């Protein structure tokens, strides 16, 4: 059993009341940080820990913090990105609904480290119940003197607000999130300037994922070096993985990075294998945006090494034979799932969620969806496959924000690995549109 940092006490009892949380050593990091550490020392510890952003991109958190501009006379902000809307990802919701104080403690410590006196948690609008849980928890923290003026007599002031989003996926992009927080239309901004220089209300801002912020309190308590010992190589620490799809035990699991994919997928402790004794067909390892992998590339990399749950191992081989850890949305497909239908479904999502600001994404996502809809419903042509690849290539890298890439990758990878399935759909429209019909080719099964 690997070490658990964030979810260790979840399930023992209800951790929502602050007293229950404090019974398990909660808020000791706040005491330690505010009374005995300097902000710079905290940033140094987080740097040492090697903690990487858990929202999907995997950018080192400590590095991000050290980029924060500190001009005189301007406030600085910390914004927690809890707008978790990636299909297949539900880890932040799990953490916030079971242990809201883990996030709040992390917010206090991180805000102190960054010198922010006002911080926001931007929560996805659909998760209203989570917002209520967080607000109640924040009120308790205020009552205990852990938030507000002069926290624990240290002279440090912090106000923490929860901001419900409007339910737009695009507002999970950090600059769109800031626009939305300012009360504007959630359109991503052009970068540079980056939020570290000009973010919320044109002030220096750090935007971090829920999981990254929550991990900082453990780092304060135990030291960055201790954290760096967990995990493998540059993928330090633990990661929450939300596993779903055709597996026996769907749910959120905290794993030590470096666990093998095979163990995670088949061990009873985690996913428990493919449901109903079916065979594995494909896997999306990090939320719908990352490239899909066929069965033969899931447990082993292209050069035969065992694939591990880590940033490096999952992206081994680039996009040709690899994928990304992303946000940790682990979606498993068994042999009965249709890849064309799934790709169409993902594309439908991106078409619906594109903000419409820049042309490749606005028009391209809709185009891909329509073509995939046609193929799935038996009206495809052979040249549509190359058209999809070309459209995806024209979108990728040419948009303001990463939503364009996120829309293009699933399409590109699905065609790269499952081209024969697309061709089968086009060649056999009457068979492919029959209910429950799935293309089977034994070679792709592990």
């Amino acid at each position: 059993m690997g070490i658990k940092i964030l979810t260790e006490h979840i399930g023992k009892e209800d951790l929502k009341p602050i007293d229950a949380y404090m019974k398990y050593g909660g808020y000791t990091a706040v005491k330690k940080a505010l009374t005995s550490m300097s902000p710079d020392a905290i940033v140094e510890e987080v740097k040492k820990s090697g903690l990487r952003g858990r929202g999907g991109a995997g950018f080192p958190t400590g590095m991000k913090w050290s980029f924060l501009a500190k001009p005189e006379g301007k406030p600085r902000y910390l914004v927690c990105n809890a707008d978790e809307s990636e299909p297949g990802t539900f880890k932040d919701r799990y953490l916030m609904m079971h242990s809201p104080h883990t996030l709040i403690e992390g917010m206090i410590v991180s805000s102190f480290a960054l010198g922010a006196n006002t911080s926001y948690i931007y929560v996805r609008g659909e998760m209203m119940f989570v917002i209520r849980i967080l607000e109640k928890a924040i009120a308790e923290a205020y009552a205990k003197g852990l938030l507000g003026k002069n926290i624990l007599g240290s002279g440090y002031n912090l106000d923490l607000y929860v901001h419900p989003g409007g339910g737009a996926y695009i507002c999970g992009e950090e600059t769109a999130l800031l626009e939305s927080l300012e009360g504007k239309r959630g359109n991503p901004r052009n970068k540079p300037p980056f939020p570290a220089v000009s973010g919320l209300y044109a002030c220096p801002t750090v935007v971090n994922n829920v999981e990254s912020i929550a991990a900082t309190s453990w780092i304060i308590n135990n030291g960055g070096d201790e954290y760096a010992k967990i995990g493998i190589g540059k993928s330090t620490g633990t990661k929450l993985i939300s596993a779903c799809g055709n597996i026996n035990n769907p749910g959120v699991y905290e794993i030590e990075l470096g666990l093998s994919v095979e163990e995670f997928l088949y061990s009873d402790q985690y996913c428990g294998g493919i449901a109903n004794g079916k065979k594995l067909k494909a896997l999306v390892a990090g939320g719908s945006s990352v490239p899909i992998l066929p069965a033969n590339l899931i447990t082993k990399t292209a050069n035969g090494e065992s694939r591990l749950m880590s940033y490096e191992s999952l992206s081994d081989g680039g996009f040709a034979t690899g994928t990304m850890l992303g946000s940790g949305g682990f979606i498993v497909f068994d042999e009965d799932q249709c890849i064309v239908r799934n790709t169409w479904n993902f594309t439908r999502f991106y078409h619906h969620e594109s903000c419409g600001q820049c042309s490749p994404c606005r028009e391209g996502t809709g185009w891909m969806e329509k073509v995939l809809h046609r193929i799935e419903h038996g009206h495809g042509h052979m040249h549509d496959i190359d058209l999809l690849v070309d459209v995806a290539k024209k979108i990728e890298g040419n948009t303001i924000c990463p939503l364009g890439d996120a829309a293009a990758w699933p399409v590109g990878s699905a065609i790269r690995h499952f081209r024969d399935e697309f061709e089968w759909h086009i060649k056999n429209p009457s068979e492919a549109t029959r209910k429950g019909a799935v293309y089977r080719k034994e070679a792709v099964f592990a």
Partner: protein
Amino acid sequence: MENTAPQLFKVTIDNIEVEVAPGTTILQAARQIGSHVAPPAMCYYTSLKGTGGKCRACLVKVTAGSAKDPRPMPKLVPSCITTVQDGMIVENTVNEQVLETRKGVVEFLLINHPLDCPICDQAGECHLQDFAFEHGRGTQRYEEERRTFEREDIGPYIQLHMNRCILCYRCVFTAEQLTNKRVHGVLNRGDHAEISTYISKAIDNDFSGNMIDVCPVGALTDKTFRFKQRVWFTKPVTAHRDCEHEKCSGKVTLWYKGEDVLRVTGRKNEWGEVTEFICNTCRFDKKKTSDWVIEGPAKVSHHSVISANHYEKKAIPEFGFKQAAQQYKQIDDLPVQLPEGEKKPVGIVVRPDSK
């Protein structure tokens, strides 16, 4: 004495060196060299703050970031909002990737565009026409249904054709920066995003007419000029008047047909941009020659279709040649396995003016 002259940055665009002031964007630097290297711009508008970065038409390749840090930038960058660094090397028309991406942008902008140029008032001075003409692929791959919108009345002077809109946001910035109160904006998201006043509220303020001038396509057109005349049959004349409105420059272009002034617009420069805006009184109410002090005939230099009241003849064969050359090559290099007895297909280039 200390040298107080500002340090100039040396930038190389398409192998042409130019010296510009710090803070200049790549697009502006390229425009200083000339129109043959300047990237196209569909959403950027020099006189409106905050525009740019949206249409992706002006993407260029930066092969060296600066003299200090000569690493290339990993992605193509929007030249309209990327500022130059000393020693930067930019590739625009000489880079295949840039040209290919631009083709893609044209295609994206056109897939939901109605292509109703024959009945569109903007035809002949449309930036999208120019852009597609100069950078597009000339054929269409989109087979799906185009998205359409309900027609909406936004006011007495301006006709909104949302189907033609490319969502450049220029009119939003115009209303924000020139008028006292913006009453229209972008609703919804994705390809269903639309310019709208939401409650069909009439746009009525003294500077709203400038939205027509900034619109790169025929989405916002002049109701007083609607279906009156094709622009290439009208004769542009520069003129001015002392306008009582303090923010109005009073400098305009009058578009004549015979003795009649059919419409009044702001003066557009080489890049199709108005730098001095005019008020609605000048635009919509002063349509007599006696209202104006005539300066002389105006030259329309930027546009390929309308140019000094006649078609630019050379543009068409060049475009055709490019197309023909590509097609010809494809046929020639066709690696087909022909059945026995059949002959290889032959491509023929025909010039439109060949005898």
